[in-house]
C-alpha cells in the first residue's frame, strides 16, 4: 500500500465509470474498542461484493482523502482514506489507516468479486 496520490486515484476512478463493479465498503473501530476503554463506542460495518455502477466519481481533500461516487439512485461516500494498492491495476483498493497503522476505513472496487 502507498500513500494516496489524488491524481492517480482520480484517474483510476474515471476508468471504472459506467461499469458493473463489486464494492467492499467498510468502517470499523475494532472489536476491542470498548474492552480497552469503556468510554469508546464499538462500531463496525461492512458490505462486501454488492454490485454497483457509478456515472461520476471524484477524490477530494488534502489527506486523509474523501471519495464520492454518484450512482443512478444514490451515492457511495467514504472519508478518511490514506492508502491505496499501487500494484493492482484492475481493481481500486483504498484504505484509511490510523496513526498506529490500524485499518479504520476501506473502499474497494473491482470488476470481479473480492
Amino acid at each position: 500500500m502507498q500513500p494516496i496520490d489524488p491524481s492517480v486515484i482520480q484517474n483510476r476512478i474515471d476508468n471504472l465509470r459506467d461499469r458493473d463493479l463489486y464494492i467492499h465498503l467498510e468502517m470499523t473501530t475494532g472489536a476491542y474498542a470498548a474492552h480497552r476503554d469503556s468510554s469508546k463506542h464499538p462500531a463496525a460495518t461492512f458490505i462486501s461484493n454488492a454490485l454497483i455502477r457509478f456515472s461520476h466519481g471524484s477524490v477530494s481533500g488534502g489527506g486523509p482523502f474523501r471519495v464520492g461516487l454518484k450512482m443512478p439512485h444514490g451515492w457511495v461516500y467514504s472519508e478518511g482514506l490514506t492508502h491505496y494498492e499501487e500494484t493492482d491495476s484492475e481493481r481500486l483498493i483504498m484504505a484509511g489507516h490510523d496513526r498506529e497503522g490500524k485499518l479504520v476505513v476501506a473502499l474497494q472496487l473491482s470488476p470481479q468479486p473480492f
Partner: protein
Amino acid sequence: MEQRVLVLLPHPDDEAFGLSATLAEHVRNGDPVTYACLTLGEMGRNMGVPPFANRVTLPEIRKAELEESCRAIGIRDLRMLGYHDKTIEFEDQDKLDADIDALLQELRPTTVYTFYPGYSVHPDHDATGAAVVRTIGRLPRNERPVVLCLAFANNLEQGIGQPDVVRDVSANLKQKLASIQAHRSQFQVAEWVSGDVPLEKAMQERFGTERFWTYRFD
C-alpha cells in the same frame, strides 16, 4: 496417560497469547494436537507496521502466519474451517455444530480448548465457545471431553470467578514467543520491550502463566 487435544478458536493468532505454550507442552508430551481455526481473520484491522497487507491480501498472509505459528508450537494437524471473520454468531448453527461434531467424532479428544462463551470479548470468540459447549453438551455425559476455556472479559471474575487451571509455562516461552512473532501482520513484539528490560524477562512477566476455566455442563 495420553491426552488427545482439540483446539477450536475462530482467528489465526487466538492461539498465540492464550495457550501456545500449553499446546507446546502437549506436543512435548506426545499428545496428538489438532487445531481447528474457524476463519482466516480476514477482517482484522492490523495490516503490519508499516502496512504490508491490505483487505484483499490479508487472508492469505494470515493463513501463512497461522501455519508458521503451528510449526513453532509443533502442531502438525491444522484444519482451516473456511468461515468468514466476524460472522460466526450469524452462521447457520446447524452447519457450525455439524462441523464441530464431525471433528469430535473423528478425533475423540479428551481435552478441548476454546473460548468461554460470554466472557471472551470478541463476538466470534463467544460464538465459537457457545457452539463448542452446545455440541459437546449433546454428547452422553461419559463421552464428553474436558473443556478448558480461555476468557478475558473485564467482568469475568463476577461471572465465572478465578481460573481453576493455572499453568506456569516458563519452559515453553520460546515456542510461545515464536508463535506470537509468526503473526507479524498483527503484533509488533518490539513495542513490548521498553528500554532496559530484556525480551525474555518481559516475556516471563507477561506471558509466563496460562489460565483456563473448566466449563461446567451442569
